[in-house]
């Protein structure tokens, strides 16, 4: 299958994402922010970085990129979109996902390993995981505090759209496991159609045991399996 990896000026984890995909034996193509062609991607990744310098607000400029128009259409047609870190911020700005990502509660950048509890396997991004299982995946962000109004949060929970929650290493929910103060320790959410995932942690950084964890590959592998099993997901034109 083919992963399309978006490149905005300021994107920096496109290379890491491409390598993670290639480790699985799949193809990746870079999607330039000014283009509208998704080049037949089965899944579009919006990687980490500081698209357009995160000027104004994280993701606020990137959502207006020509490429994002195609991503919007692709998502609306059921195509798989994975937003990582800055990609999550862009997806929120583009209203493909609810909520917003604000400055970390510590007011500091955080780069460290976090433990994510898989809250649902009923998504194309977590099908290869176990519900309640814990993934060791690093974060690297200054603005990753997920916030939404209480009714949105309740709805996300009720619809089982919280994909990952920050927890202690053993999987227990503790107050201070979140690196950023996210509401209800939310690390990743899916869209109503469950075909768009945004997450602050970087699964592409947990791609091989040499670097401390290969848990992130569960997410990429889930996508591959989902695409293989369900031809219902849109393929980009």
């Amino acid at each position, binding site marked *: 299958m083919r992963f399309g990896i978006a490149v905005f000026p300021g994107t920096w984890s496109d290379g890491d994402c491409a390598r993670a995909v290639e480790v699985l034996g799949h193809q990746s193509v870079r999607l330039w922010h000014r283009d509208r062609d998704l080049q037949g991607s089965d899944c579009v990744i919006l990687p980490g970085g*500081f698209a357009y310098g995160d000027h104004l607000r994280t993701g606020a400029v990137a959502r207006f990129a020509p490429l994002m128009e195609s991503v919007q259409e692709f998502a609306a047609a059921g195509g798989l979109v994975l937003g990582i870190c800055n990609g999550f911020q862009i997806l929120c700005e583009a209203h493909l996902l609810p909520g917003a990502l604000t400055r970390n509660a510590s007011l500091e950048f*955080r780069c460290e390993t976090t433990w994510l509890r898989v809250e649902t396997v009923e998504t194309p991004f977590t099908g290869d995981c176990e519900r309640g299982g814990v993934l060791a995946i690093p974060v690297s962000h200054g603005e990753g505090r997920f916030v939404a109004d209480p009714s949105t949060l309740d709805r996300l929970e009720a619809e089982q759209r919280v994909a990952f929650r920050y927890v202690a290493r053993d999987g227990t929910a503790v107050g201070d496991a979140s690196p950023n103060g996210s509401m209800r320790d939310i690390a990743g959410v899916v869209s109503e159609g469950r075909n768009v995932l945004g997450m602050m942690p970087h699964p592409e950084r947990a791609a091989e045991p040499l670097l401390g964890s290969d848990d992130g590959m569960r997410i990429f592998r889930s996508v591959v399996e989902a695409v293989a099993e369900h031809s219902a997901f849109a393929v980009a034109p």
Partner: protein
Amino acid sequence: MTSAGPVSDATLAEVALTRGEYELSTGRLGRVPTEVELGVIGAMWSEHCGYKTSKPLLARLPVSGPRVLQGPGENAGAVDIGGGLACVFKIESHNHPSAIEPYQGAATGVGGILRDVFTMGARPVALLDSLRFGPFEEPAQRHLLDGVVAGIGGYGNCIGVPTVGGEIYFDESYRHNCLVNAMCVGVIEQSKLTRAAAAGPGNLVLLVGADTGRDGIHGATFASVELNEASSERRPAVQVGNPFLEKCLMEVCVTLAGDPRIVAMQDLGAAGLTSSSAELAHRGGCGIEMDVSRISRRERGMTPYEVMLSESQERMLLVVSPQDAASVQAEFDRWDLHSDVIGTVTDTGRLVVTDVGEVVCDLPLDLLIDDVPLRHPEALRPAGLDAALSVDPLAMTPPWSMGETLMRLIGSPNIGSRRSIFRRYDHQVGDDTVVLPGGDAALLRVRGTAGAIALTTDGNARYAALDPRRGAAIAVCEAARNVVAVGATPVGVTNCLNFGNPEKPEVFWQLSEAIEGMREACLALGVPVVSGNVSLYNDTEGVSIDPTTVIGMVGHLEDLERRCTAGFGRDGDSVLLVGPVGMDLGGSEYQRLAHGINGGPRPTLDLDLERRVQAAVLEMIAAGLLSSCHDLAEGGLAVALAESCVLGGRGAQLTERLFALGAPVVQAGLLFGESQSRFLASAAAAAVAAVRAIAQRHGVDVRELGTTGGGRVTVIDVFDLALTELGRAHAGALVPSR
């Protein structure tokens, strides 16, 4: 050309020239320089650009070796790391700007050193930062620390280059002059290494990247004078960084590496367009002619003088042939980067600047670069040194038990965990950081090879305050030990010499001695110096910092699988001291903490022993015999033991009775003394005989001290501490008590 009238003292002070130097320039020119020319000469003859004090001393350093691909003289040095790849690296100071405006000072320091590396075509793969502040207990110092850390992170995190290491020391000596030294490391195919030598008269000069503003005018000369009360009024001399712009610039420059259309590439750093254009032309034995009116400006009304001396960040000069200019400009356009054709390469050997046709500067390049008037100040050994050296550390009774001393040391700002700092830096982007910050050296995989590079910075100035030569030699050895501890062979050095005002004979003596010490150690260990930077005038109100030689070192590991880390890796292993038993307390952190002084004989250093110990340890790691390896540095054996326990998450019981013998001060010496040329390793009991055999072959002592495992850190009959308590103290070292 309009000539200025008789030059005033105030004008000369502004361009940091002495009247003698000014008269030298008029003599050479046979006329009075114009205003622009005076600014150009002042900048090029500043310590920052011209190294007028340090040049003769630096010539003593060993700069060649079989692996050296590029020694000093280019934007950065380069060494061979196998597989047809070059490792390009350099360290540079941004001390003065950071003291005035910590965030932007540090951020632009990172930006500047990144450009030095990608100017050579190399993709930056790692950043390190060597920082010095006044006492951590003082809020003003923590404010500086916080600003500097935020600035380094703000730039490095945004640009997507991991910050993988560095060090921080706190000392009274830096209260008014913090030090911010940034090191960047890049990797490139050797055949694509890009040089910064203009060639081909008639070729075009492109200025790419940011528009030119009034920021940073006189930055180079600012860095070449002492700070004083009025220095905070010099904020306009501090530049403002734009990492987003630099990220785009980096992507294009890295893509253009090895492209036949690129004749030369040179970044704009200190003294902006002045030094970059002059050096570019001079390296290629050419001349250069530029029209400042063609340069895009950030603001109106800028004079040619201001344009030539602006230190606006994120700018690059390129030399391309006229037929390639449009296609090269298109590469920058793709990233929304602006480029201007601002001039041409000539064969005149002159730097000519025009402003819409009017010549405002016409100077011979050799005057600016070869004829820098060197200063040979008087060197004088400081009078107070003998008194400091005569202190007898073994005559001072320890104030605390050994256990309490270890708890205090491991929780002290100079020794405790740096996690609260490095977690604010993205240290993983690029997916190559195999050994994360917190150990001896960071280890990065080199893609396309089976190998890795080990990176570290080091530079203890307490030893250097007592003996600058020994101190600088120890800095080299300690950096090499960091690299060796992960299993890598030291292959290259970059250095940053941070000193006070060299016009003071005592400071010049320190500088001269330090360079000699660096030379001796580099020769002994066979590691060449391939790049470096000098930061002088780190003085405030006449008080100089301690002489601070910061060594950045790159090591190469052939086989990534043969690496080692600092934490004890397994229960039941033997704990081994590789190297001599010693009790050098002079200049130690123990002495600072326990007695508040720095005195006595500085640690002894036997360079031949150092070399043999390092060779032995490398062989042990390569043979796969060690399950951990950690070098002994500040805090000595006991601190290394505690660190290996904390990092490995397991305790250790030392049954060696040596430490329990003798008076308390002898115990302190053995446990906390900072004797050199030592490692604390661990190995399976079955491997110890093989370890001993290797050590013996190198004439190195190995002493079995005890066993790893359990939840306590114990030295029999001396102390018995809970690992959790030690861990808590270690973790809390840089968390201010409120």
